[in-house]
């Protein structure tokens, strides 16, 4: 399966490019390499990759602009590589349509885990979507709008249910505070991050075995939340 999957890597630093490329090629992915945003855009149009890995600090163009343009015509998942202590640009890239991020320096295992998760999700979305979402002992029936734990019905409020659906239907993906507020509350509460925090807290109380050390709804500090099925 992985033989046919291609990844476009846009990274200006040659060392990192070679390291990432050789790692992924060893795993059986076919790699297309680009050293600049301009070259990357050409390759993206020509080869239609299954995944895009993009360095945010490209010399010729702002990475966030690149994501916006790319998202206008493609839904291919984007994994961004960024330097530490640049939470704001990470959030901006995710808001612009990137799917996940890796902070430099990152290890091989982290890289492979993210790549696998994004490609798996791409396959899932290409298949017929199912109204049933399962994780751990839980099952969400999106048609009947009920959540069950080991076949037992759970009581969730409207907002909790909506929040859970948004999170669970994006497994492994980082959702920014803004994206969650927009999808759960609509445009009314965009500035009110406290709403989100209160409800994430409620939801953790209900679905996590140990809410202080969550297994499903993970905090990405300064960025948002990631759902781990």
């Amino acid at each position, binding site marked *: 399966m992985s033989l046919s999957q291609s990844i476009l890597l846009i990274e200006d630093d040659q060392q990192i490019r070679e390291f990432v490329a050789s790692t992924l090629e060893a795993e059986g992915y076919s790699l297309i390499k680009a050293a600049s945003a301009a070259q990357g855009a050409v390759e993206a149009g020509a080869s239609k990759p299954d995944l895009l890995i993009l360095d945010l600090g490209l010399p010729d163009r702002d990475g966030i602009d690149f994501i916006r343009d790319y998202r206008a015509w493609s839904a291919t998942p984007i994994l961004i590589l960024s330097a*530490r*202590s640049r*939470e*704001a640009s990470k959030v901006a890239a995710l808001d612009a349509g990137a799917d996940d991020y890796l902070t430099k*320096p990152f*290890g091989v295992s982290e890289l492979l885990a993210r790549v696998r998760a994004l490609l798996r999700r791409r396959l899932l979305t290409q298949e017929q979507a199912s109204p049933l979402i399962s994780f751990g002992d839980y099952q969400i029936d999106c048609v009947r709008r009920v959540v069950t734990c080991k076949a037992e019905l759970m009581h969730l*409020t*409207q*907002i909790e249910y909506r929040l859970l659906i948004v999170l669970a239907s994006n497994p492994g993906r980082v959702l920014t505070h803004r994206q969650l507020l927009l999808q759960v*509350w609509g445009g009314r*509460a965009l500035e009110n*991050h*406290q*709403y989100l*925090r*209160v*409800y*994430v*807290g409620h939801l953790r109380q209900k679905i996590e075995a140990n*809410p*202080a*050390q*969550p297994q499903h709804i*993970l*905090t*990405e*500090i*300064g960025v948002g939340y990631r759902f781990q099925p």
Partner: protein
Amino acid sequence: MSVRNYLSALLLSLALTLCLLPLQGDLDLSNAALLYVLAVVIVGCRYGRGPAIFSALLSALLYAHIFVPPLFSLAITEAQYLLAALVMLVVALLVGHLTASLKAQTEQVLARERQTRALYDLARSLTASLSPAEVESVSQRFLANTLRAINIRILRDEEILLPAAPLTKALLQSAMVGRHLLSSTGSHPAYSLMLVPLMASANTPCVLVCEIPVALAGQPMTRALLETAASVITVALERTYAVEVARETELRRSTESLRNTILAALSHDLRTPLTVMVGLADALTLGKASVERERSMLSALRAQALAINQLVTNLLDMARLRSGSIELNEEWQPIDEVIGATLQLVRAQWRDREISVDIAANLPPLRFDAVLVERVLWNLLENAIKYSPTDTQVELIVRQIGIWVDVMICDWGPGLPTVGSEELFGMFKRGQAESCIPGVGLGLAIARGFAEAHGGQILAENRLGGGACFRLRLPIGSPPNLDDLEGGLP
């Protein structure tokens, strides 16, 4: 204003005449003349010279017309009556003039006293000002109060090169070259533009510019006041410039010393792991080690690289703190969330270290920047882990204490030195100067800096029975009330 003064003088003379009219026959001529002179004195006192002279002439006419026989006629038949009328005119004129001069003098003295007091106040306020901006605002207040001035500015350096209308470069040039006060037409016809050069120091020429009412601008007293004020302001400016220069020098010196310390720290703490890495890489290239040995060398290589990464992160954090450019991305949030996320990171790095967590229930939400608080917690936990034996437990306890939420991170290590525990928070300070535990000693300084940026504190203490305890203390503000979020939703 002046027309009204003359009108008042006229009315007073007429009123006096009307009052005296019934006594026309009985009143002695000289008494009547005295009463008129009195009226002129009053007018002189109240309305000044012009009205007094006017009143004197008018009184003389009325006196001659009504009281001097033949009554109701200006024709004076006898020489002595003429003399009386003339004397009355001269006396009235003289008295009126004297009174008015006296009044003007008194007013001038009062005005001068007011100005002196204002100048005194100016000097006092200027002594207390610490920056050129403060000097400017004090000067503005002074000129607005004393001279009803508007558009008051102190121009310096580049502002002199690019003057805004109604100022022109030529005007400014001539004021500065001539080194004296210059006036010109203001932005409004009722105002004159005044330029006062302030020669604060040889290389920073300044010009005080303001617009004052035309009536005031012409007076010599105004010019004198402006010049005196200018010299006081110049001295104050000179002083504040000196203070500024001294402060900048001090800042440059401390930045310099910081850079030196960082360089020294880097050369030691960066070279050690780099040396290890080069050695490991070379050994691996030779390929003579066993597979097992190679594996452990590779993991050592990785550990050293991560140590360098941690060092770089700390140096960057420190640079952010020192440059004073921290922008807090504060939000109301529960503290447990950031603690959970930090613990996840810490546990990933130190897998086999036991960390116990005890968080009080029902803690209020706090307002903080999660990324920075994560850095604080990481630094405190890293210290606790590094400076205590590997088989002991690290404890994290969260409690609400009064108006604070305290996150305590405690270990069972050797504890803190009993004296000078405050020293630990200095940059590049470590409990023991040379030790085999890697690190530069930036962690606590960063933790304290970030905590203080939130209005919080980091406290260090030794716990009973041994071990150190660091306390991150964050203030409980007044969290906003959340509406009923469920209501009103479809």
